[in-house]
């Protein structure tokens, strides 16, 4: 835990990227976590922020785990199932470390901003210097701690860089309210650093978006 922001002091053991997301969520709000995995973020949000937490998860094991933890989670697919939610059903729709695994990231993002008043997206930055080094020096697709799968069996089919994502946000007519980037040691990069700096040294990024 290397973050000094007092809002992020939500107990030991929580992943820093999840804490960054939690920091962007207003207490007591309605939250949908798309691709909620084992429910770690939902649990954190429910306990630390008192939110009404719901989730969608593709894997059966994940859903069963979540239900066992008392979370309201349905088995579903970010690409196909967001359309079934009415407009403005949630204050926040979160996509944590999942956008790179969706088939149509742009549509998913648009749906998130329709279903939720705000969207929070966290993703691994494919523009990080280690990724660039691997491609440049080894000529191979990078396999790192954050991206452990080989190219042929990775669920991550739509990698992007921080700059790419920033462009997509502009393209769909959304507004970035807040953005954060973490380096490889989980430290927050300076907020006043330029985008190119984040794009090289940020290993992960978190964006809080709203409609224009």
């Amino acid at each position: 835990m290397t973050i000094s922001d007092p809002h992020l002091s939500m107990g030991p053991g929580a992943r820093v990227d999840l804490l960054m997301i939690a920091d962007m969520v207003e207490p007591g709000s309605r939250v949908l976590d798309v691709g909620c995995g084992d429910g770690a973020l939902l649990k954190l949000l429910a306990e630390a922020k008192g939110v009404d937490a719901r989730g969608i998860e593709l894997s059966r094991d994940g859903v069963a785990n979540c239900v066992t933890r008392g979370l309201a989670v349905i088995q579903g697919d970010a690409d196909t199932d967001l359309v079934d939610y009415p407009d403005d059903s949630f204050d926040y729709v979160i996509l944590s470390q999942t956008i790179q695994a969706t088939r149509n990231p742009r549509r998913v993002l648009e749906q998130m901003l329709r279903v939720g008043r705000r969207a929070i997206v966290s993703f691994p930055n494919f523009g990080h210097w280690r990724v660039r080094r691997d491609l440049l020096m080894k000529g191979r697709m990078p396999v790192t701690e954050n991206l452990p799968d080989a190219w042929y069996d990775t669920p991550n089919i739509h990698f992007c860089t921080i700059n790419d994502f920033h462009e997509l946000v502009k393209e769909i007519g959304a507004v970035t309210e807040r953005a954060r980037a973490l380096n490889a040691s989980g430290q927050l990069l300076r907020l006043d650093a330029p985008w190119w700096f984040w794009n090289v040294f940020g290993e992960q990024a978190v964006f809080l978006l709203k409609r224009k």
Partner: protein
Amino acid sequence: MLATGLRKGLAKQKCVLYIERFGLNAGISTGFPGVPRSKKKVFIAHGPQADEPDSLIVRFPADQPLVLDSGAAIAPLQIAYQTYGSLNEARSNAVLVCHALTGDQHVANENPVTGKPGWWETLIGPGRIIDTDRYFVICCNVVGGCLGSTGPASLNPATGKPYALDLPVVTIRDMVRAQAMLIDHLGIDSLFAVVGGSMGGMQVLEWASTYRDRVFAAMPIATAAKHSAQNIAFHEVGRQAIMADPAWAGGRYREQAQRPEKGLAVARMAAHITYLSEPALQRKFGRKLQDRAAPTFSFDADFQVESYLRYQGSSFVERFDANSYLYLTRAMDYFDLAADHGGILAKAFAGTKTRFCVVSFTSDWLFPTADSRALVHALNAAGALVSFVEIVSDKGHDAFLLEEPEFFATLRGFVMAAAKARGLA
């Protein structure tokens, strides 16, 4: 043989304990109901169990009619039920279990007709997921059934003969209204949970819609918010098989001391196939022959699967009333929760505070996952707190009655979390 069966049954009703007469005892019985422990199979499917069941009963007099969706009414009304565990002081720990088409109220005790364990004993009992040491579990025979709640096999007080087809057609909502009368009678305002699979799941949905303020948690399992055309079609095959049997006698078979055994058995055989899956049949029977080395070139039950189905058919007629089968299949056919709410399913749950746990099974083609998904979409649209999981199983629709580990883990987690939220944990 039937007459012997009836005599045995009549002798048996003398042993019925704890029968609750209306007006005499409005209290709540706790502990295990007095079910005579007879291993003997007794032919009572359309005999004494219909009127004097081995269960607790409550009788609502003629001035408390059950008014039905059709506009008709049933009065007086009898409800047969079983309870397990005890109601807490706050009356907040009651769980209503809704049974499926051919189920009954004996969910967690030996069945007095078949001598078999309760149909959901794996789920319900001391220390089980629905823990009878913590919850007060109620299960009643549905209206239209044949195990002691008013149904076509019950005696019509107006004629002194069985109702047969004089009983008005009942719907799932009518069943639920009757259950609500029982729950009121037991002095329970709000149920901690309502749980059921298949037709039981339809009742769960109806509870969550019609009595949405009275249901804290709902577990509709392997079910749908409406009966599909294919399912109606299968039911019609079953009904036609029964009605084509000359022994059905226009429904008046009981007065003639006979019953449409062949018709009901065929109905069950056809329905039983829909409860299984092709992989399950393949695994269990394949093309294996029954006690023979080669085909007999006849229409004997050469294949194991034929022999199995015949057994399923013949054992079913010993425990179930043919007219009841007509009524209950009809109730399922008529079920369409969205149609009752202007065609929009979400409206059936508008403003609900109930937490839902929806479960489907991969190989269930009678109530496929798509049905559960449609339900989940509607619940989401209504802003309901809903969990949904599709369990991998090759056991078909019947999987909901079996101890599938993933299924039970999900239910355990959901019940524990709900109990915590209700202040019961």
